[in-house]
Structures are given as structure tokens and as C-alpha cells.
């Protein structure tokens, strides 16, 4: 199943679904041609795109809004907050090439503050599938939920068979560990998985949690992760505002005394081929393992 075929099935089931874009059709190219009147392309204008989506939602439709993640969440931010967030309308925002997935585009196209922005809109759901399987699996949950949502579109091939049904606010706990627990979401899940395997081989007791959604976030899974000696947050996002911040907020609120190693982005990353960009930003599995081992050994 691809994103398009899943969405097409859902459009059959849910006549209220509409397909919108600001001339960014990469994710819906063939579906757009079959959707007829239910497809609207407003041209390259994200503010109008979101306003139109709010108008449709106000009239009983559920628009699936496609645009590049940075322009959707940032250029149109105030339209999302004001026209979708305040009235809590069922507008589903799909941000293309979020985070590290913008690879060769450079800083203009890097949505690495999008989660921070979206999760601060009351009622907004933030969905961060780990790969294409989860991208498809999260769609029914996103559509059944009648509030606004932001989806970090990610169609990287799946490296594992995921556990359980995809539920909003429910993390996937792949394994638990005493020494270290890796918390991750979205495109870096593959790196988290590889790092976990290597740390296993090195003899550490390693936990791995795929958060799946950051708003709502699975607090129970986070609190369980806090039992490990070291908590690692791994994200292709600024280290301020998304997962690291969520973990810090929760730890302080609950009085949990955790040791935290945040791995993420301090600033815009160098543009290039996906793997090269990942390595330069030290977000590849080798760099992750190196930093975690360094920290674990420091404490011995």
C-alpha cells in the first residue's frame, strides 16, 4: 500500500474528504487526476490554501492539505493557528519533505521547527510516522479524529514490521533497556533502530521507543523510558521545541531525575544527498552510537 492508494480508499469511505494542494502534488500526483471535483489546487499560495481549507471544513468537508512542510507550517502559520486552530476545525495538514527529508534543498526548505510550532496550537495533533508503512497506517486514525492535525509526511521504506495498531498518542515500544533508552520519531527511526542493534551487540541493555505522535504524546511510555540510566532523544528537528523539550517538561513536572542526551539539530543542516546530509549533521547511526557510548562510558 502506498500513501496514495490508502488515501484513495479512505476517500471512497469518507465522502467528506477533499484533496488540496498549493501546487505541490508529489504525494498525490495520480490521485489528483482521479479525484475530480474533490481535488483543488490553489496555486503557490499557502495562506490562501489554509484559509480555503478552513472554509471547506467549516462547511462540513475534511480537507487533506498538501504542501512543503516549511511553507505550510511557517508561511501559513498564522492561518493555521487562527483559521484552523481557534475554531478547532478538522483540517488535515500534510507537510512534505519535513526535517532531514529535505536533503539537498538547503535551509529555506528545512522544516525543523515545524513540530514545535504545531504542537503549541491547542488541539492540534502532530503525527510523525517512522516510514511508509506507518504513513499509511496513521491515516485512518488521523481522519477519524475530528480535530486539526499535522502529518510529517515520510515515505522511507519500512525496516521493521511495526507492532500493534497505529493510535494517536500511543507509542510503539520496540524494546526496553536498563542502560539506555532511545526515543525517536519520523525519518530518524531507521537510524535509531540501527543504533539500537549496534548497542545491543556491544552488550548494553537498550530500550527503543517510536513515539509515533508528539501531540498527544504517550506520557506513560516516556515515564517508563525515564527508568533507564540514560535517556536519548533523537530527532531531525531543532533540539528546542519538540521531543527534547517534551521530555524535559514531563521530567520536571513529574519530578523525574533523568540523565538526558539530546541528539538533534542546533541549527540548519548542510544540504546534500540524504546520507551525506545525515552524516554531516551527525544524525547517522555511527555518530549516534559513538555519542551514546561516549556518554555511557563517561559515567562508569
Amino acid at each position, binding site marked *: 500500500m502506498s500513501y496514495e492508494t490508502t488515501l484513495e480508499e479512505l476517500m471512497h469511505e469518507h465522502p467528506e474528504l477533499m484533496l488540496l494542494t498549493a501546487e505541490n502534488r508529489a504525494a498525490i500526483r495520480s490521485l489528483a487526476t482521479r479525484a475530480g*471535483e474533490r481535488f483543488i489546487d*490553489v496555486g503557490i*499560495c499557502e495562506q*490562501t490554501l489554509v*484559509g480555503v481549507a*478552513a472554509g471547506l471544513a*467549516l*462547511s462540513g*468537508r475534511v480537507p487533506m492539505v498538501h504542501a512543503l512542510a516549511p511553507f505550510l507550517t511557517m508561511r501559513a502559520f498564522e492561518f493555521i493557528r487562527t483559521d484552523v486552530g*481557534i475554531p478547532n476545525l478538522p483540517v488535515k495538514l500534510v507537510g512534505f519533505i519535513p526535517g532531514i527529508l529535505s536533503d539537498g534543498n538547503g535551509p529555506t526548505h528545512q522544516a525543523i521547527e515545524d513540530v514545535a510550532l504545531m504542537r503549541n496550537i491547542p488541539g492540534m495533533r502532530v503525527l510523525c510516522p517512522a516510514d511508509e508503512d506507518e504513513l499509511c497506517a496513521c491515516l485512518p486514525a488521523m481522519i477519524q479524529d475530528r480535530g486539526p492535525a499535522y502529518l510529517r509526511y515520510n515515505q522511507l521504506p519500512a525496516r521493521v514490521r511495526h507492532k500493534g495498531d497505529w493510535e494517536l498518542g500511543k507509542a510503539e515500544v520496540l524494546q526496553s533497556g536498563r542502560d539506555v533508552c532511545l526515543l525517536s520519531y519520523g525519518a530518524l527511526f531507521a537510524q535509531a533502530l540501527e543504533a539500537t542493534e549496534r548497542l545491543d551487540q556491544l552488550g548494553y541493555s537498550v530500550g527503543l521507543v517510536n513515539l509515533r505522535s508528539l501531540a498527544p504524546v504517550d506520557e506513560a511510555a516516556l515515564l517508563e523510558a525515564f527508568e533507564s540510566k540514560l535517556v536519548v532523544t533523537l530527532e531531525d528537528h531543532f533540539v528546542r521545541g519538540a521531543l527534547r523539550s517534551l521530555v524535559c517538561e514531563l521530567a520536571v513536572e513529574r519530578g523525574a531525575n533523568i540523565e538526558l542526551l539530546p541528539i538533534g539539530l542546533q541549527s540548519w543542516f548542510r544540504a546534500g544527498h540524504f546520507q551525506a546530509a545525515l552524516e554531516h549533521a551527525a544524525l547517522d547511526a555511527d555518530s549516534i552510537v559513538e555519542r551514546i557510548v561516549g556518554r555511557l562510558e563517561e559515567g562508569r
Partner: protein
Amino acid sequence: MDLVDTVVATPRPRPMSEARSLANAAYRARSSVLEMSARGGCFVGSALSCVDLLVELYFRQLRVDPIDPHWDARDIFLLSKGHAVPALYAVLAERGFLRRERLMTHLEVEGSVYWHPNRDIPGVEFHSGSLGHCLPVGLGIALERARSRDTDRRQSQVFVMLGDGELNEGSVWESLLVAPQLLSNGLTVIVDRNRIQANERTEMLVPLEPLRSKLEAFGWRVVETNGHDFPALERAFELCGERPSVLLAETNRGCGVESLQNRVGGWFVHASPTELELYQRELLASHRAAWGEQE
């Protein structure tokens, strides 16, 4: 004396002309705006400018039902220039959507009557306040209606009122560019062209003229009218709606109150009791000058 005698004895009054009855509603609405300005202040200039437009819309143009404000096939009106909200609420009260007493809860924290429209007030379709939002939203509503299976709903109209100062916002021009490409009819934009924005005359800050030709070049039918003349407004609205249309309504900011009209300084007014009395007296005088004493 019983009722039958009274009817026979009193000559039947001549029916009021429609224009006069609309002007009376506008007078009462303006008077309510002034009352709100005495309760913490409000954006009186902007509100008085569009009272007649709102009266024309709610009494003659919009298919709406105050008894059933959520009627499925109703026309939709969005006030994008949110600061003019006292005028909207006052006209909604005149039209029976809410009781006039509610207007007097202005700025009471539990009352929902504050400086921008919100959906807690019956008849308000969408909130506004941040400029440049309601045209995109109205376009979305019109696109849904154009796709409706219900004939009545499909034929309903969407009206969006913008301030001329609001035309500084980029999102307005995005939507002005896009709408005629996506819609063949059902959307009318009303520009309250009072030529004054918050602190400055529009043509002194960012000149909009030649506005008509700009809008026409974007693919809109443009109808120009006097925004305070009911017969002219009726004719102007007849020319709108067949295709995406802009009604350019020439108006006077602060219209009806001599001390406030067409003044750059009359944006936000918090009237003292003495000022309120003066403004109400001026309002009544200008109404009488136009329409004479009530017969």
C-alpha cells in the same frame, strides 16, 4: 372606546418607504455603536462606515433566517475587517439575531461582545480580527457550496466584506488572483472604501488606485457604488453574483456623526458621557436632515 372604534377613527398611516425603513434601522444601529463606544470604547470610525452596507445585506440581500441561523442553504456573510464588529452586532440585533441588550455587555468578560467577531454571537459565521483571512475562508466556503448536491445550497451566495486598508495584506491579493480561476459565481467581495486606514489616508500610505482596473485585471466584475445610498446599493448588488464580483462601496468613515466623519483620528473612540450625548445628537440631526421628522 373599543378597538374597532379606534381603527375607524384613526386615519391609516402611509406605509413607510423601504429606503426609509432601512435608514431607520441604520440609524438605530449607529446609535447602538455609539452606546458601545461609551462602554470601554470601540472602533467607531470603521463601524459607522459600513452600517448601511450591513443593513442592505441583512435586510435585503442575504438569505438568512434569524430564527434558524444555521439553515443549511443560507447565504454566508463574513466580516473580514473585524474592528467594525459593533456595526455587525448592532445590525444583527436589528435583524433579530440577538437582543439589543446583549450589545450593552460590551467588553464584559463573560459576554463575548468584544472588539472582534466571534461565533458565540448568533449570526456570526466565522471569527476575524487578523486582517486578510476572510477572503480565503470565504473562497473555501463558496467552493464547497459550488460542489453541493443540494440545489438550494449550491445557489447560495458568499459575501465577504474587506476594509480598503486591509487591501495592504498579501493574502487578499493571493485570493483575489486565485478565486476567479476556481469559481464561476457565488462569491461577492465588498470593499468598504472609506479611504482612511488606522492612522493614515489610504492613498497617502500605500495608494490603492487605480483600484477598479487592478481588480478587473485580476478577473473580477467590479461594481462601484455609493455605500450609503440604499436604492444605489440595491442596484449595485443586482449586478453582482453572476461571476466573482467586487462591490467597491465609496463610504465615509464615521458616517452619520459630524464630529467623527471622514477624520483620520476617529479610529478608536472611547466616548465620555458628554461626548456620547453630542454624538447621539449629531446622529439624530443628520438622520433628520436626510429623512425629516418621523411622520
